[in-house]
């Protein structure tokens, strides 16, 4: 075995190489993007308006409900429910930021790279493809945090949402498990995009509103279970997106499990955390295998570098 071959198979060398690839691919997202500061306005601040619209819907419902009652107890209940729903929207808004990042900057990124001609360079580089996707995920998370934090701050400062965090550590555990599971899913989707062309781009577009709906981004997912017939089916399908379980747990941890009379939660927080951890592991493993399989398939069908199809 030559010295160069021995070096390439050395574990320490391979770990170092892949870590450098992670840093290298996350660099343009964390540092490079900040060289174009306009993105903060376009990608982080402007989208807050969409979230604000959903907040105003609940406030509008609340105002009309308050007008129709004079009982102080009923009025207090309406106010509490409206605050909890507005808080649900704000939390959903933070998760929307990550979901959109997973769709457009994670899942469809390899397709984008193919279109602009970078993919072949990645394929020739000696690092593991998972390191490449890992770098994209790390960069994407950091980049998207700006928008997520803006949404949270706007919720608290502008809309006066009150969060009651009883267990910050559990909250962090749920949040990061949900993120890892979500980006794991994104990595898995990314491999599909090696094979597909514009179908995949349209699939990403299709995974916006239908997922916002079926995963309960703007309302507690338990609401779907209350609709007889199709409701539970849609909710169960939506639960395969980690954001739905993650949001349910985050809402319980920040609003208290007695919010909405405790009737709109799916599972208790611990169970949901366990589900998220399982999802994170499963999606990462699946991503690894999907990527290897679909890369081979794309090479065989000659689609790895074919653009504009």
């Amino acid at each position: 075995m030559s010295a160069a071959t021995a070096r390439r198979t050395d574990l320490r060398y391979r770990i170092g190489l892949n870590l450098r690839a992670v840093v290298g691919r996350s660099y343009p997202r964390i540092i490079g993007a900040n060289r174009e500061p306009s993105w903060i306005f376009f990608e982080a601040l402007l989208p807050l308006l969409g979230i604000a619209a959903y907040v105003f819907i609940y406030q509008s419902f609340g105002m009309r409900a308050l007008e129709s009652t004079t009982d102080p107890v009923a009025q207090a209940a309406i106010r509490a429910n409206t605050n909890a729903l507005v808080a649900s929207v704000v939390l959903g808004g933070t998760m929307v930021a990550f979901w959109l990042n997973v769709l457009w900057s994670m899942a469809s990124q390899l397709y984008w790279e193919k279109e602009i001609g970078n993919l072949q360079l990645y394929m020739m580089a000696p690092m593991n493809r998972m390191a490449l996707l890992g770098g994209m995920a790390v960069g994407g998370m950091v980049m998207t945090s700006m928008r997520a934090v803006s949404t949270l701050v706007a919720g608290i400062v502008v809309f006066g949402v009150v969060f009651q965090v009883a267990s910050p550590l559990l909250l962090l555990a749920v949040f990061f498990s949900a993120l890892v599971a979500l980006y794991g899913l994104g990595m898995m989707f990314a491999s599909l995009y090696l094979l597909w062309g514009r179908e995949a781009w349209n699939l990403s577009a299709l995974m916006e509103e239908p997922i916002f709906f079926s995963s309960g981004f703007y309302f507690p997912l338990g609401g779907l279970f209350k609709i007889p017939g199709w409701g539970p089916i849609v909710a169960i399908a939506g639960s395969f997106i980690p954001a739905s379980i993650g949001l349910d747990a985050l809402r319980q941890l920040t609003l208290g499990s007695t919010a909405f009379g405790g009737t709109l939660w799916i599972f208790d927080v611990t169970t949901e955390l366990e589900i998220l951890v399982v999802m994170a592991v499963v999606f990462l493993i699946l991503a690894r295998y999907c990527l290897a399989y679909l890369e081979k398939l794309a090479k065989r069908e000659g689609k790895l570098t074919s653009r504009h199809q």
Partner: protein
Amino acid sequence: MNTYWRTFKVAAWLGWEMDSNWTEPWLFMVYSIVKPVAGAFILVLMYTVFAFIGNRPDLAAFSYMYVGNSFFIFVASVLFGTFAVIQSDREWYQTIRYVYISPISYYVYILGRAVSKIAVAAFAVAITLVFGVLFLNVQMHLSLESVPIFLASTVLGLGVLLAIGICLGGISFLTAKHTHGLAEGIPGIFYVFCGVLFPLSVLPDWGRAIGQAIPLTYWFDITRRMLSPTLGVDTTLVGYNDLTILLLLFVSSIVFFLLSIGIFKVGEYYARKAGKIDMTTSY
């Protein structure tokens, strides 16, 4: 004039092919329906959850929101269909330099590209409204005598939207790849301030003032007046009669058309000056 018309026709055909030829027609139809219907269902569930946790159902507020949201499909599609042309040609297909140097009006080319989006959006709006009336008990009844005003307001509203889209296109000549932020954010402004989902009375005074300065607010209001005249929701625009609103929309569409030409030309000039016409900003 002939060149403009030919550019418009070919661009419209190109836009349609780009939008639809990635799949079978039936799948494209399903795709075109699923997105807006799911968007409407988010609102249905928001309303259901609010009613479920002990509040009185309010069908008028729901119908107000549903009709507004259905017509908002036009806003999102038309805006995206116009300003995204520059960014997709520049960043994605990297064909902008070839189209740009051809002997056509790039302004008319963008308008043509947007037409297919309007057609698909019109189909989605119709499906969403019919679905709402048949399955969700949305209060809607368009009388025969309201049809001309409804059609005229729709044409004028779309004209304003196209002009706003071109204004944004002019700006996007100079910006990085912000398609998604723009696609989400700019319609968000109209979503919040134009009384699409809730009456302007919910907004603070400054927000109401912004809303009343945007022509689309009047478009949504007159559309609702024609389609659902019996809702009884205070829109804060009762002082304006139907013809005044139509006149307002007509004037706005002319003003925004002139503005769009100005902004487009300025954006184009500075992009050429800075060498940004065919830049790519990938990260």
